[in-house]
């Protein structure tokens, strides 16, 4: 299929395009590609014999990976587990919102616009301040914990701060807009006549949703889950502000501590590489499984 855009593009000299690309591309090579190689190199460094803490020299010490993984695999697994829970939570909160705005409010652009403002409004508060607000909301003497005590959902000495629950709630909250917006975009494009056709073919609302609306919103769901899962797996602000030091630590915290407190650059770098590769593999499998390679 040739569109007018492609016709024009074909007629233009490629050289001008390359010229436009060059500055930004070189920037990304200098400050993204080369740093990733610097990270790979750092992950294989060895301590300078007899040197101070934080002094390393270039080497090819693959052993660093085995050591780092042997010590920190629980934090790595936990990061993926929390990210998965946060993705599921964000989907549970974000999909109905996207559906309400895109489908139920179709044809009322001002209402849609205002609701979308509410969806992105959390972003207008600094992310770190929001995480601290969760600390206040979930505090031991806060309304939420008191209500849960009263309802006997939580035992009298039960608390929400310093638990995995608080970490996952904060992660979920942080990524709902990332989830809701792409889903909204695909639902918005959905032709309402397809849904009507479902009704005409005697499908109930639930069947129509399951067989028409949901499949057609999958591109949005896939982008939303990626936009949630990837940053959530690397996040450590929620875990370090709302968790405890023993059973809520995520891999980002470990990388941060190794880099800055312990000056253990090779371990920090090798854990970063492992995180990056693991996410790339998971994302690749997920995208292939959902059949949405064109999104990339």
């Amino acid at each position, binding site marked *: 299929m040739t569109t007018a855009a492609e016709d024009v593009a074909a007629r233009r000299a490629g050289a001008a395009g390359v010229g436009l690309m060059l500055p930004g591309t070189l920037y990304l090579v200098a400050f993204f590609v080369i740093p990733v190689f610097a990270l790979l190199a750092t992950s294989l460094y060895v301590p300078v014999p007899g040197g101070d803490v934080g002094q390393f020299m270039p080497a090819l010490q693959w052993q660093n990976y085995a050591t780092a993984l042997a010590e920190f695999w629980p934090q790595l697994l936990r990061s993926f587990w929390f990210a998965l829970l946060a993705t599921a939570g964000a989907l549970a909160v974000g999909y109905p919102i996207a559906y309400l705005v895109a489908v139920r409010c179709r044809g009322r652009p001002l209402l849609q616009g205002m609701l979308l403002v509410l969806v992105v409004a959390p972003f207008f508060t600094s992310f770190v301040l929001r995480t601290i607000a*969760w600390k206040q909301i979930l505090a031991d003497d806060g309304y939420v914990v008191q209500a849960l005590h009263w309802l006997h959902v939580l035992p009298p000495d039960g608390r929400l701060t310093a638990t995995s629950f608080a970490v996952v709630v904060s992660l979920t909250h942080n990524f709902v807009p990332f989830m809701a917006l792409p889903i909204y975009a695909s639902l918005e494009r959905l032709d309402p006549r397809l849904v009507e056709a479902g009704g005409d073919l*005697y499908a109930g609302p639930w069947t129509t949703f399951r067989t028409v609306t949901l499949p057609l919103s999958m591109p949005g769901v896939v982008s939303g889950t990626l936009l949630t899962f*990837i940053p959530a797996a690397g996040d450590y*602000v929620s875990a370090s*502000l709302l968790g405890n030091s023993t059973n809520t630590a995520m891999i980002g915290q470990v990388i941060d501590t190794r880099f800055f407190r312990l000056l253990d650059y090779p371990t920090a770098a090798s854990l970063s590489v492992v995180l990056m590769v693991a996410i790339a593999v998971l994302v690749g499998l997920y995208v292939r499984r959902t059949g949405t390679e064109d999104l990339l």
Partner: protein
Amino acid sequence: MTRPVTRPVARPAIRPVTAPLSRRLTGALIPVYCALAFVFLLAPSVYTVLYSFNDGGRRNLVWQGFTLDNWRNPCGAPQVCESFANSLQVGLLSTLFATTLGTLIAIALVRYRFRGRALANVLIFLPMSTPEVVLGAALLSQFLTLQLQLGFWTVVLAHVMFNISFVVVAVKARVQSMDPRLEEAAADLYASPWQAFWKVTFPLLVPGIVAAAALAFSLSFDDFIITNFNSGSFTTFPKFVYVSAARGIPAQANVIGTAMFVAALVVVIGAQVVAALRRRALRMVVGGIVAPKTGA
């Protein structure tokens, strides 16, 4: 997740003529559920606003009583306003650079065909699909290797890097929706490519570029993880809040957070209202043109 399947579902049962109670209930279910979801989404922002009026002094974690003192003296706590000013500077500079570089790339990717285009797409996509902690660690490895002094400029360099991709994605959507024949028309009217760009293409791109710049600024202003890795002793607003979280955050931080929240809300709601007024004006104009014709 299953592959999308759209197949008509035959249902032998006869559909009742009036909408059953269950359907009306599910109809109300979504708005009610979404109302709760919005409470969840906005609760931390509301808490941030509330605690800006807290008479809590330096440790603003427990509600102590209402005061306007924090608002009268927003720079009253050490480092609050300095870090805020730092964040504004980093945000403005990195937005300027990232928007320029990203817009050029977006134009090139949509309007030109050249070798390496697929590779360039991957290069744009990768920083967005890499967890921030990895981006931060990679850049830090590079800066450590180069023995660069960490501070204001390393933070700006880092922010430009992660913002370019977001700008490309945002502007690309706008370029794709533009009719290339407009530029052709300009060329037919003897405009040089340079003139065609500045008189035709650029004005049409402005809304997309403004949206991309707003996104870049908010991502830069709110970034903590990458900043934390590359800032040394230089402190941005999110970093200040995070670092002081252990000791307790001064209520002035909530004042700044609230002011930003309200400012962003006013801008976005204002834009929605302007768009709604424009739509109405357009309808009236179109109506005025169409009405006499249908009457005749």
